[in-house]
């Protein structure tokens, strides 16, 4: 310890990190639309890369969310971790575009929604944003929470990303 040198620190393996969120929206007879948020170096460093999308009006999409940790090799699929602890997690969808409606199509062991799969329905043309929030340890019994209202959810935010959306 009295020496004038010190060993290099070992960079931690950031297993818990989520670098990427993908929301893939598919509807028959049309190419899939992928909303993507990617921040490979975590907090700080380079700014995240955010890709929004253009949806068709009066259309119903099947939505699937995938969470990745791309800082690891091979890339780790964090979605599985959420599936294993599904009672402790819930995704919320909020939009500034009137007429967009997202409904949960999955549920945990208690019959409460998770939000990894959903149905997104558009109405008239317009533009705005769609925000996706993943809460850890929300109170799923809170008023309106199982219908997708985040107001009384509580818990900690693990993910909060916002995409620009165009509907035409």
């Amino acid at each position, binding site marked *: *310890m009295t020496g004038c040198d010190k060993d290099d620190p070992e960079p931690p*393996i*950031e297993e818990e990190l*989520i670098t990427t969120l993908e929301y893939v929206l598919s509807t028959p007879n049309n190419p899939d639309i992928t909303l993507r948020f990617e921040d490979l*170096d*975590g*907090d700080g460093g380079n700014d995240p890369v955010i890709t929004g999308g253009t949806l068709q009006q009066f259309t119903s999409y099947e939505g699937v969310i995938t969470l990745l940790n791309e800082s690891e090799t091979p890339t780790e699929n964090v979605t599985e971790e959420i599936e294993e*602890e599904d009672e402790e997690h819930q995704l919320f969808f909020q939009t500034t575009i009137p007429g967009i409606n997202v409904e949960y199509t999955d549920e945990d062991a208690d019959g409460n929604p998770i939000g990894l799969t959903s149905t997104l329905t558009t109405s008239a043309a317009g533009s705005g944003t769609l925000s996706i929030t993943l809460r*850890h340890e929300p109170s799923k019994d809170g008023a309106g929470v199982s219908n997708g209202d985040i107001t009384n959810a509580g818990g900690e935010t*693990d993910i909060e990303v916002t995409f620009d959306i165009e509907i035409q």
Partner: protein
Amino acid sequence: MILKYNKLLIRIFAILFLNITYCQAQDCNLTLSGNVFDETSLVPLSYVHVHIQEENRHAISDEEGKFSVDSLCAGEYHLQLSHIGCEAKKVHLTITQDTLLIISLPHTASLLGTVIVKGQSQHNKDQPNLSIDRQTLEDNTNENLATLLENEAGVSTIKNGSGISKPVVQGLYGNRLAILNNGVLQSGQQWGNDHSPEIDPYTADKITVLKGASAIEYGGGNLGGVILVEPKRIAHDPHLHGQANYAFESNGNGHVLNTQFEQNTPLFGYRITATLKKYGDRKTPTYFLTNTGAEEINFSIQVDKKLSEKLYSEFYLSSFNTRLGILRGSHIGNLTDLQSALNRDIPFFTEDKFSYQVDAPRQEVLHQLAKAKFKYYANENQKIEFVLAGQINDRKEFDIRRGNRSDIAALNLLQYTLNTDLKYTHTFDKDWVLNLGNQTILSDNTNNPETGILPLIPDYRTWKWGLYSTLSKSKNNTDFNLGIRYDYVHQLALTISNSVPREIIRYNNYFLNLGGLFTIKHNFENFQSLAYNLGIASRNPAINELYSNGLHQGVSGIEEGDINLNSERAIKNTLEYKWFQNTNFTINALVYHQRFNDYIFLNPTDEIRLTIRGAFPVFKYEQTDAAIYGFDLSSQFTIGNSILGMLKYSYLQGDDLSNNQPLIFMPPNSAYGSMTYQHKGDIELNSNLRLEETSFEINYRLVFEQEHILADQDFIAPPDGYSLLGLKFSSNMITPKHKIRYFIKADNLLNETYRDYLNRQRYFADDIGISITTGLSFKF
């Protein structure tokens, strides 16, 4: 004996404390007489109750502080001297002849400052200071180091809930405040506002706060105050003595047990202390603060050994171990979570049942200290002291984590520190004292990569080498003191890059710090004194200020250091006026002003950083010119011989001069008042039980709103001011064989709902409501 207020006598009594002279007499016809004085002012103390335990006889001192007990047989006696407003003093003596005892009691010490005997640092007694005695410690076993001091003028606390508290002295804390545990500079993770000092105050006999400018001897880059946690010397008593203190606190169902044993055997003297603490969830007036329990296990052993007539040694080992819960509802993910938490009346995750359970978020901290000290008295005028100390600080912080990772610490730091301290004291021409000192501090800090999170502060190693000298002289009731200090600091920091792939970047920094001190104190004939104290100091930027990088979960912000920071420099002026006309009325007024160049602070910038977890505010370490100034007022008075009153007031303001705005996180102004009625004489309950020193206290603490802050400097406006009422009853129960002290007190008696500006938990929850503490102290 006529006593004139005289500097030389102060020194004699301060150092000797006790002076016994003998005259000729016959057995069982011996007289013990004594003169009792106030330790600080040297005013004779009347109404001191003297109890000779073996004989169960009593005496009371007269107006000149004199008492006398006759018809004593030759033999060994334990004496206890007690007086309103000060801790009882125990004396062991062997009487073979008529004996005159000259003794001082710390009647005004908490107000007027104490004479610091430990180290006998000449300049300390001229520095503004205050102290807390053992009695206060025993009657507040439920408090921690910081909260014990928070009612004192000029002292406040930064908290994170009720379990985590850091002391603040005249606006300075953390990296700027030195805390000495048994003479060793405490070395832990001082940079964190949510890191309490890892010290068990119940190992101490006295806690002293030096408020003045740079205390030259203590180094550590302290631009301001110093807190000394000092055990007392092991008494020259060949019998085994000890005490056990137990307290129960209703708020949190807290249990605290503290024991202490000491003995001076022919070979060596020893003292062993141990403290156990267990608390569950605290409660506001209306709801539980879920997950705010705490556990603590502490142990210390001290051994004093006289190696020869000239060489003395002292060995000290202490172990501090704590597990502290943090309010579950204060753990948040991002700025959105913070906003929704701020808007709630009752925090998220509040349970309606009490629990002792401590889950994440929590802290687990171990701090071990080993110290050896040698004192060599070369001759009457020359003394050399050498201290070697090692510390290990192991801090783990656990957050709520995904994927069963809550049991893996999110912050895991291990720090080793090695201190050496060599000091030479030379007294010449009777009233000149020269001190020369050489200090080294080596610390090594390593992050455990098992956290799986990029560390907030990097691994580092620092070397500090300090030299100092002080020179003091007393003449014609005037004391001078001059000091200079030089420090050379080398930092080696090993940071991990923010970009991928991760790279290690090594930084080597070299700093020179200079400090100087000048004090002059004049004692006027009419029991007044005026002291002026000037201190200049520089402090190199600390590792966290240079290299912090990342999310500080506790404050839900991204903190960024700046590798280009310079050393900050400060100049502090204090002027202290004391008046002790007699022991019935004393007053202490202290004015201070501290000017900083390149003051380093964490600035909340306008930048909001986007991450996958959402938006976070960015806080950057920046430098500015600043001033912190204010005044501390305190007064102690007695009404009749049974009522003791205290009044304290602290005013402080901090300004960022370059940006023309207030400094953030400065203590609000506060006041404290107490009235104590002490029953004269004993209350006989029956032939086997009587009560002595029965007293009843009412106290009131008033904290004003922090108005000196701009709206955009914080997430929400500072909370309103508040006032807390407290009551306390205490008494010593005396049986033929034992003495048990009993107390019961109520804090926040009116169960007021309030939030404190310096408590970070105020963003989420109210502060704690009414709490009743009862305690027993058994001594033998």
